[in-house]
């Protein structure tokens, strides 16, 4: 019985089926991007165990598919089991062996990247200094209080996913509870117009919420826009302190609870670094007489007070800054401000990927393996033909 299982797991037939399914998943996962957007499609097809593809406009899932995780896992199992059972090591198969090890490494590396890599954005204007980067997708409700010293804040950061209507959030460091009244995945804030909005009450009773209304927006799926969540929460210490509107579009608001000031800020999830970057200068060049970008370049000053480092670095396309386990890539640049003689803006993509080296290793192994195998075939083939041709 067990041997039957192993036979199945190691069979070439399984390999072929998995490869075929791989083609299908990648194909439908790519098609899915047109309606779902890159991020959602990635989650649905590649970072999942099972997936199904639904044609545009159809209400029913039409093509059931294995997800990327399932396929990857099965391929790795197939390869490993095959090598321990079916394969007999010979020199003539060394290329295939190398290739397979490389592929296992690539698959594991991709999995590790999925779990460990973090991407965020650091955006600033010329002259600004940043010691944190921000998520481009996720928001958090930061509840801040001055932590004794003058320069440090104590932050309790509640992820946006926890803010569901009806939820009551408590934390040992907070002397009050947060009750979520309303929550929006994507919403815009505008000043309430007393004349026009006579039928709409203000969003909240306290803070700026008393002067605004929240307009819910359909969630966006495209790459070039992001959702800005909003919520209405009730703060209740010993007694209720009223409701507050929070939104990614609003500045921090202050709540006073029993004499202590707390700040509420709904902001992109932040990742603080032990060093700071200052944007010194942005360069944005286009080809003459066109809008085709030729070069984006940010000159930044890198300061690390602990290691007493202080140097200037240029970051531009194909030339990132690697420092402290992070890599900073030139991502976007504000063109207009620069052209107007104002302060230029720049956004750097910040990536932390501890497993970044695995794909390199995997690729080298597969490349060498395939090359070896290919050359062996070729020389054998030529050697065989030569006598006949002569």
């Amino acid at each position: 019985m067990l041997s039957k299982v192993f036979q199945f797991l190691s069979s070439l037939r399984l390999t072929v089926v998995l490869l075929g399914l791989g083609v299908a998943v990648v194909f439908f996962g790519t098609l899915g991007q047109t309606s779902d957007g890159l991020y959602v499609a990635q989650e649905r097809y590649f970072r999942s165990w099972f997936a199904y593809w639904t044609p545009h406009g159809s209400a029913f899932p039409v093509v059931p598919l294995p997800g990327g995780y399932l396929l990857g896992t099965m391929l790795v199992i197939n390869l490993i089991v095959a090598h321990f059972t079916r394969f007999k090591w010979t020199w003539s198969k060394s290329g295939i062996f190398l290739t397979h090890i490389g592929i296992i490494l690539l698959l594991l590396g991709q999995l590790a990247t999925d779990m460990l890599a973090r991407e965020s954005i650091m955006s600033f204007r010329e002259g600004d200094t940043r010691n944190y980067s921000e998520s481009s997708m996720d928001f958090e409700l930061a509840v801040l209080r001055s932590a004794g010293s003058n320069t440090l804040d104590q932050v309790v950061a509640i992820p946006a996913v926890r803010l569901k209507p009806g939820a009551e959030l408590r934390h040992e460091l907070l002397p009050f509870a947060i009750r979520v009244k309303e929550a929006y995945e994507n919403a815009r804030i505008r000043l309430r117009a007393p004349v026009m909005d006579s039928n709409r009450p203000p969003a909240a009773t306290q803070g700026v919420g008393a002067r605004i209304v929240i307009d819910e927006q359909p969630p966006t799926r495209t790459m070039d826009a992001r959702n800005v969540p909003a919520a209405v929460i009730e703060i209740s210490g010993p007694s209720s302190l009223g409701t507050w509107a929070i939104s990614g579009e609003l500045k921090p608001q202050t709540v006073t609870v029993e004499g202590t000031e707390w700040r509420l800020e709904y902001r992109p999830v932040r990742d603080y670094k032990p060093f700071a970057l200052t944007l010194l200068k942005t360069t944005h060049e286009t080809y003459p007489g066109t809008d085709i970008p030729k070069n984006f370049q940010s000159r930044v000053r890198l300061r690390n007070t602990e290691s007493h480092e202080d140097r200037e670095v240029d970051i531009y396309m194909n030339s990132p800054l690697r420092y402290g386990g992070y890599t900073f890539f030139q991502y976007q640049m504000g063109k207009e401000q620069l052209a107007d003689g104002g302060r230029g803006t720049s956004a750097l993509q910040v990536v932390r990927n501890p497993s970044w080296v695995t794909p390199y290793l995997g690729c080298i192994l597969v490349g060498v393996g395939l090359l070896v195998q290919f050359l062996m075939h070729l020389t054998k083939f030529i050697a065989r033909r030569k006598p006949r041709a002569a």
Partner: protein
Amino acid sequence: MRFTVVTVVSALAWMAAGCGKDEVRVYQAPQDAAPVAAADARGVTPQDASVSPASGSASSRSATAEASASERPAVPWTVPAGWEEKPASGMRVASYGVKRPDGRSADISVVAMGGGAGGELENVNRWRDQIGLEPATEADLAGLRSIIPAGNRQVVVYELDGKKAVLDGKYAARTLAAILPAGEMTVFFKITGENALVAEQKPQFLAWLKSVDTGGGTGGSAEPAPEASSAAPAAPVSGTASAAPAGSTASSGSVAGGGTDGLPNWQVPSGWKAAGPKPMRLASFEIPDAAGNGDVSISKLNGDGGGLLANVNRWRGQVGLAPLETSALAANSTALTTAGGDSGTWVELKGADKTILGAIVARDGVSWFFKMTAPSSVAVQNREAFEKFVRSVRF
């Protein structure tokens, strides 16, 4: 051996499915810079100007967030030195004060109101009244106002020099007021106080206006004033070398020229004159007449603009008619279809001396308002032309 590898792989894969994303984090972090700067920092990724090097197309992942940053109700301006913040109250979005040891003072306020907030003349006359000036007429307005650029907008500024000693019975007052359309709102910036003090604060006030970050705005309601954005070479010499025919050469096949202004197409009846920019209005026309000019305005509001009834009643109020109940609306309005096939509501409101003819067309989540205000006799003569105009609209 083989089992361990397999187990580890699947365990890793399982973990990947959902790890720690919704945990509450606690950390200590250096304080952000001053709150204003923080807001500023978030708004940096420019919405339409940023170019992603990867795609080369003008796009920004955070476009939505940034585009709407302009509507952030928190103060989007730089407060001039010497202005003391006062608690905002009532209608006020923000409030500041300037005091002198000798007891002279000035009050600075920002008030945001929906819609046209009663019209320019009404507001100006309220301010005039506050400092003891006689009401002005519509014809006087042009002479009183000046238009200054602030950021990417044109702001209408009134300077009202009160002569009477209305303050504490000993000081004359002066008011500087600016009207800035912002999305669906009209925002009034005003400084009023002791005459000399306000005059002295004028540069600060104007600098403050220019610092107001209005962003791109939501509607097309705040287009730059046409005369200011006319052909470039005319700009440095506007008013002097009028020989430079601004835009006159555009007729030579302008397929590539010009920018969209977001307006529908329409046919303007002969005799109407395009009028200068007004807050909240996308376009204005003047119907010259000896008995009093007619005024045609085109504006739009997002959504239903507060509802059909509310708008009709607002217009009724302007000609001195009593508000209607919902049930009476149908009887007092008719349906109308434009050339573009959009249907709208047509109302005729005859007041004691003024008449308003109006049409409201809802389209793609936006309400368009076409309105003619004129002395009743003029309105009767131009009724047909106006109706034709509205019917000619094509989006």
